[in-house]
């Protein structure tokens, strides 16, 4: 089953130039963003200039936390890629054709879930390789225990990347147009959720999808202000995000199940 989905999606993606351009830019931005922010970034706290490398940006074990946190800002690019791939299928009537030729609607979802997993995996591997390359050259006496000490952030990072993509996927399935879906996703991310936050009682705000996803990896900069943050991704936000992943994919399936393709 997954072999068939993979074969189908491979043909589509392999020859889709936009996909590879986005992926190349993403890779470049992730590596360069890490290097530049760590090398030249600085913060002003209480009129005191603090250089970011003091956060152990390039050295184990602090590296994983910092790297997964700042790379998380690029999840929007992955989300955009998923929207482009999904809207492409819809725009050219491919899902319609797939169903007529004998695919079940659940398989349409399954094939794209596979693509999203592969993208999340790629992103995580990229972070691992980048982290190892910088970390091993900046940490004086790195042993395995030190490297793995906060490697749990990598799992949190992968789940976070996947979670953002599932939200984007739902938008793409429902509105069916790349441009509209991207704008809606951004509007939701920038104002939509804040508006709901404003209307909801305080404790519930934590349960909204974007809030939960971004909370998986705590903000390491907070430590500069003497605020203590979670030093592991496996907090409540992680499990709420897992629940959201299931619900978002379920919603996408329900939408397809009861609508024309």
């Amino acid at each position, binding site marked *: 089953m997954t072999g068939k989905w993979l074969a189908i999606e491979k043909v589509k993606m392999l020859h889709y130039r936009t996909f590879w351009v986005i992926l190349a830019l993403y890779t470049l931005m992730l590596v360069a963003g890490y290097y530049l922010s760590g090398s030249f970034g600085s913060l002003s706290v209480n009129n005191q200039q603090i250089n970011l490398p003091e956060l152990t940006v390039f050295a184990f074990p602090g590296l994983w936390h910092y790297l997964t946190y700042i790379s998380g800002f690029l999840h929007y690019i992955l989300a955009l890629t998923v929207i482009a791939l999904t809207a492409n299928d819809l725009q050219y*009537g491919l899902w319609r054709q797939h169903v007529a030729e004998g695919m079940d609607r659940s398989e349409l979802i399954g094939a794209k879930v596979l693509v999203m997993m592969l993208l999340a995996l790629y992103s995580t591997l990229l972070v691992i390789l980048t982290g190892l390359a910088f970390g091993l050259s900046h940490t004086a006496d790195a042993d395995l225990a030190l490297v793995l000490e906060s490697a749990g952030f990598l799992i949190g990072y992968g789940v976070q990347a996947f979670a953002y993509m599932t939200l984007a996927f739902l938008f793409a399935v429902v509105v069916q147009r790349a441009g509209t879906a991207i704008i809606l996703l951004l509007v939701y991310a920038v104002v939509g959720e804040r508006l709901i936050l404003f209307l909801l009682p305080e404790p519930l705000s934590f349960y909204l999808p974007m809030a939960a996803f971004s909370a998986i990896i705590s903000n390491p900069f907070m430590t500069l202000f003497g605020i203590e943050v979670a030093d592991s991704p496996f907090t409540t936000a992680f499990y709420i995000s897992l629940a959201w992943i299931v619900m978002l994919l379920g919603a996408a399936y329900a939408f397809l199940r009861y609508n024309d393709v």
Partner: protein
Amino acid sequence: MAPALRIDNLSKSYSGIAALDNFSLIVEPGSVYGILGPNGSGKTTTLGIILGVLRPDSGTWQWFGNPPSARSRKRIGPLLEKPNFFPYLSAEKNLMISARIKGVGYHHIDEVLESAGLADRKHSPFYTYSLGMKQRLALASTLLGDPDVLVLDEPTNGLDPGGIYEVRSLIREVASRGKTIIMASHMLDEIEKVCTHVAILKKGRKLTGGTTREILSSQDTLEIAAADLDLLHRLLSGTRGVTDISRDNDRLTASLADEVDVAELNAMLVQKGVKPHHLLRRKQTLESHFMEITRGLQ
């Protein structure tokens, strides 16, 4: 043996407007069933539903006696309203996707591209194809895996006369191998030339259905004049296959069944003492016949 397709009381409306209203149909294996109707009569909606693409508001359908499923659709070669392919992928790559879904080996691809006359362009991206080539590629994809049933929505759409001829020959060839074909068309002569059975749809309702011979048997018009119109009228009234006789100035007009031989009719009249000095059998145009059928059945 279960019918290839059985449709029971399908209905679907788009924002309150009925696209399909209580439509039922039985298609026996091996028949070429035409769904005939003007644009917007519900043909595409019907085919969309039985191909699992559109969701009906109510009603059921069965393929080969089984409830609809993705598995049963794998035995069908579908041609949707328009060719659906990735513009940046070649014909071959596009068909690889279809072959994978159907569980058909890639070696079938060359075969069907050959039969659609696209073998020499199989590496060209789809967007470089002409409208006719796109339609031919869509038809080629329906043949992948030699399915038991073809479901074709306006198969000759966008083709030039040569292409139309080829497609009709292809349909006849596939039908001659015992396959079932269900096709929608708004062209009466296409249905007449290709189909064994026909259902006529208008505004989402089935007006009539049956064998093409029954439904589309056309009544020609007879124009006849002789010196003694009264006697002529009396003689024609007693002749089989001559109906609806009316007087039109110096001549009579009547409807003529297919089996009436005008030469014999003439000989009979002469024998009875009437010598027609004007005798004309006019073929009814298919279009006017279609209008007549749909008008009469509403």
